[in-house]
């Protein structure tokens, strides 16, 4: 059995910042093809698209920047690094 992405994320060390979502999505964006590309692109599988609603959870973000490069100004409304000391902390990299 292949490992699920959730299992993989569970191996990482994260310091979750509930008060500050460092990435926000544009819910009024409606190009389904583009949204599906972003869903596919995120290595942490943090985006979803169901019943016309874009789901996104910034916790678990690997801070790669793929979603911004692919869809900044479209699906991705704002993108920043998390606050200092927050987010993922790789032990090996």
């Amino acid at each position, binding site marked *: 059995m292949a490992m699920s992405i959730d299992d993989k994320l569970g191996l990482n060390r994260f310091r979750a910042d509930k008060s500050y979502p460092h990435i926000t999505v544009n819910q009024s964006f409606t190009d389904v093809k583009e949204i599906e590309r972003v869903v596919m*692109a995120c290595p942490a599988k943090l985006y979803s698209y169901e019943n016309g609603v874009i789901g996104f959870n910034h916790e678990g973000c690997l801070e790669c920047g793929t979603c911004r*490069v692919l869809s900044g100004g479209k699906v991705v409304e704002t993108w920043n690094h998390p*606050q200092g000391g927050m987010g993922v902390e790789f032990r090996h990299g």
Partner: protein
Amino acid sequence: MSNEERFDVIVVGAGLAGNTAAYLMAKAGLEVLVIERAETIGGKNVTGGRMYSHSLEKIFPDFAKEAPVERKITKERISFMTGDTATTVEYAADKLGEQGKATYSICRGHFDPWLAGKAEEAGAMYVTGIRVDEVLLQDGKVVGVIAGGEEMFADVVLLADGVNSLLAQQLGMKKELDPHEVAVGVKEIIRLGEEKINDRFGAASSEEGTAWLFAGDVSGGNVGGGFLYTNKDSLSLGIVTTIADIGRVDLAPRDMLERLKAHPTVAPLIKGGETIEYAAHLVTEGGYNMIPTLYRDNVLVAGDAAALVMNLGFTIRGMDLVIESGRLAAETIIAAKEAGDYSAATLSKYKTALDNSFVMKDMKHFSKMPKFIENHRIFEQYPGMMDEIMSELFIMYGQEPVKFKKKAMTAVKKVGIMNLLKDGMNGLGAM
């Protein structure tokens, strides 16, 4: 930190570029502040895994004796894969490991703290767990940074903040990355134990390592491929794929990695291994043509932030280039401090030095490579062609003999002889 405190230089980012520069500048007596957003140095940093040592050797001769490198690469492999076959070329040679030319597998979480430690010993000051929110401007002039809500001042700011350099973008020195010029790398660290690695990869000792690239099926025909590096007791296993291609075929980058892990060539090598980390990171691959503005009054850009990375198809090279850029930025700033002048005119020496170094020479030399690599035939059709030729060569079941040349030509014709010639010429041209 009080507002009166003023540094000669603020370095943003404690990666390879930033730490190298910080070390050299501190050693020359400059007051250096390095600001890093990760809580522990290296905590945000990801690489594939292999560092060409020559540029760090210039600064720390014989560093591998002391630094936490994983293994010295003595074996290079490239595989062209279909779903269930692989044609593999191996090059094994002692001279791959010659002093000064050697390459090492490294893990940034282990390596970067060592380099930062050197800079700290030399007198550089580090603050970690603090994000630089923006570059501080007064009357349009760079005077420092705003970090963790505080203003910090310096004569010059060195942006070594990596591929997602929002700060170089803030200053208009760099455009947003173009999805055609950037790839995403997705990677696992798989713990296997030293002995198993030695056995499975034919290493005579835990000092010897393998670098292995995979082309073809892994990326489902998209521009990209897989990589494997042997670390001391773990493997770095991952894929890299161009962002613009995502959605072109129905295969997510995260699933490419699973596909690689399940391939019959790879599966037995990682069997019994335990995944201990999952990471993703961008790598620029636009080459020479995407290098941003490198200097302005009171500010320089180095490392990945300056896109000093080469994707050569058969290998990715960034670390030796970013270290060299850190060194040259440091030399420029040291000279500017002596002259008491941090204007663009003085800092332009950084660009001149880069132009005269192997960094720009190599990047110019390989400037056609990104276009060549964007050709989907390389990823879609050639691995299949290799498979057909090899299976004709090696598989015998009492069938009627057909001349090998004829069999090989059948495989080649599927790709198209003209395409093959054209791609061959372009490939040679790009080299």
